[in-house]
């Protein structure tokens, strides 16, 4: 199947620093969805990217979909303690309907 790898696996930042997580695939993806999972919580949908080169922003979060639709990134500007959690990218495999395959996740810790 279409596997997606995320890097880094873990990231510790000081509050106010920026953070970026990358999602990479060896094959072209139909779409990318990003989810956030707080410690002890469940995944919560953040955004979906469908078009090549698409960029979307949500306040301090910027999401990008690569031109070749093989990679995506999530960038957080000036992290806050509320940003703590694990960020997962996910995609719908080709021909898989609405089935989601999740990436390996990046765990973000923010220190004061």
């Amino acid at each position, binding site marked *: 199947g279409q596997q997606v790898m995320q890097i880094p696996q873990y990231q510790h930042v000081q509050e106010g620093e920026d953070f970026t997580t990358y999602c990479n695939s060896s094959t072209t993806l*139909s779409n990318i969805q990003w989810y956030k999972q707080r410690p002890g*919580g*469940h*995944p919560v949908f953040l955004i979906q990217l469908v078009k090549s080169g698409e960029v979307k922003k949500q306040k301090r979060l910027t999401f990008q979909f690569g031109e070749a639709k093989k990679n995506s990134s999530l960038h957080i500007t000036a992290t806050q303690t509320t940003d703590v959690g694990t960020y*997962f990218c996910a995609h719908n495999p080709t021909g898989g*309907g*609405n*089935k*989601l395959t*999740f990436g390996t996740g990046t765990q973000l810790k923010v220190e004061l």
Partner: protein
Amino acid sequence: EAGVAQSPRYKIIEKRQSVAFWCNPISGHATLYWYQQILGQGPKLLIQFQNNGVVDDSQLPKDRFSAERLKGVDSTLKIQPAKLEDSAVYLCASSPSGRPYNEQFFGPGTRLTVL
């Protein structure tokens, strides 16, 4: 709008015992999913229902796992008999139908510990 409901929230059993989880999706959502999330990993799809029919169960260990959604609303997932490696959080999610690539809404999950 009420979210996805799951019960129980926690369950501890011994290996070879049976366990069942229940999920009630968001009202009107035709598609229901069960995921297994092992600690430190992303959720892995076990089974997907569209109304009361199975769309994908390719990753469901059918020798011990079963799931049903008889009336196309709530769903149960059963493990019989449980193994140590089944310790995980079992997440239920739902999504509306009618357009491709819908976002999924997750329930709080059931944390299963098999001793």
